[in-house]
């Protein structure tokens, strides 16, 4: 059991809106920890469209999505936010007034006075390939992510897919596996050309097999797979014997456990008060794409505004005895001190 981390604020989601919330909270002397299921900071901006330009960030006529994330990271640096990546908040319990115990899927427990949900469209989760009966093998011998490479040492591995994850893990696991087969539907790969070339070299050297086809069903028992039944493009069927299957069919956004945290929801969104962006549970806020209110626009700039107002109300929970004076970063020496720019 790991130690409980105590913090003022927990932010669920490290996308642009969650990041800017760190800034607004930081100006009010409020520290934050952020949890994100992705392995990187930046949410959809970093995962889905890092290279794509954004044209509607006030004051930035054109910036790439990754550029925006990088800028936000620089902007919030003075407040040293703590990130917990590759983790998803599973459970939220109210244990005080307000005080929350938050547990992630990695077993990490946090205690926070304020919970800010900035989870966008929900959590990114691996897409389950449309193979009948695959559910019974999940976690035991079908894996959608590699947590420990050692787990695959000496095994016969089947990697399915044609994107970067499929190719990266093919290259990484090939030296460990007793045998590795990469299965893809067609000759063309979506992955980076460099990875494809490296993979083709391994195939040329006879170190791995490349098979063109699609898995139609699985054989095995008690959750342990023994073979994949594969159909080639010409319709012929054959078996690939394997101990582990790693399907990489991209990510999909799912609302995830948010719905179980006791917050009122409407059509998979969280209704909020537009003066504070607080949910129906005092101390739990929702900002960015995941909230809803009359006139809501799913824009990054709206999420920034929502974070600023959230911080004002959060201050009352974190420092119930302190009066909050409104200040500008341009003129306030105390704010400039916090930013380290005086």
């Amino acid at each position: 059991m790991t130690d409980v981390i105590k913090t003022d604020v927990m932010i669920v989601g490290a996308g642009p809106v969650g990041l800017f919330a760190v800034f607004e909270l930081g100006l009010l002397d409020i520290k934050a920890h952020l949890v994100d299921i992705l392995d990187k900071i930046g949410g959809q901006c970093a995962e889905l469209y890092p290279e794509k330009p954004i044209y509607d960030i006030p004051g930035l006529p054109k910036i790439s999505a990754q550029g925006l994330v990088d800028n936000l990271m620089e902007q919030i640096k003075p407040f040293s936010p703590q990130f917990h990546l590759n983790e998803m908040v599973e459970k939220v319990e109210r244990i005080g007034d307000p005080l929350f115990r938050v547990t992630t899927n990695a077993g990490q427990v946090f205690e926070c006075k304020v919970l800010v949900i900035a989870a966008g469209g929900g959590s990114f989760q691996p897409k389950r390939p449309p193979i009948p009966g695959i559910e019974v093998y999940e976690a035991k011998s079908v894996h959608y992510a590699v947590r420990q490479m050692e787990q695959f040492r000496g095994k016969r591995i089947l990697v399915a897919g044609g994107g970067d994850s499929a190719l990266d893990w093919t290259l990484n696991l090939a030296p460990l596996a007793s045998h590795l087969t990469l299965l893809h539907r067609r000759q063309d790969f979506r992955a980076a050309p460099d990875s494809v070339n490296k993979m083709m070299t391994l195939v040329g050297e006879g170190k791995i097999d490349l098979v063109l086809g699609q898995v139609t069903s699985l054989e095995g028992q008690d959750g342990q797979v023994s073979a994949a039944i594969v159909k080639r493009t010409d319709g012929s069927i054959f078996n690939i014997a394997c101990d582990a299957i790693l399907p990489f069919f991209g990510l999909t956004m799912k609302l995830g456990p948010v719905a179980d945290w006791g917050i009122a929801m409407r059509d998979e969104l969280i209704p909020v008060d537009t003066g504070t962006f607080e949910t129906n549970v005092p101390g739990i806020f929702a900002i960015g794409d995941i909230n809803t209110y009359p006139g809501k626009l799913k824009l990054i700039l709206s999420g920034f505004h929502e974070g600023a107002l959230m911080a004002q109300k959060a201050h009352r929970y974190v420092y119930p005895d302190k009066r909050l004076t409104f200040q500008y970063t341009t003129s306030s020496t105390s704010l400039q001190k916090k930013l380290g720019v005086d």
Partner: protein
Amino acid sequence: MPQITFTDSQGNSRTVEGDIGATVMETAIKNNVPEIEAECGGACSCATCHVYVDEDWREKVGGPSPMEEDMLDFGYDVRPNSRLSCQIKITADLDGLKVATPDRQA
């Protein structure tokens, strides 16, 4: 209006009318054709409107774009005549088009 026939995985067929300029996916959804999900709403970013184009119609309908091919990687039982129905625009030429749906979408 062009007529489009959808045959489901059980072999049941239904013929519906489609608007010129609309997509085959939109036509299916509008007419409650089963086995077409269209989760992403036509943005070519899922593979849940997957259909098999009847062999006689393949040439007229044409093949998938590279982006559509990428999405078809996520489909189930993808075949040489597979297309995403959100990427097939109905034209007068496609009157009588026949497509079949797979027994599961991605």
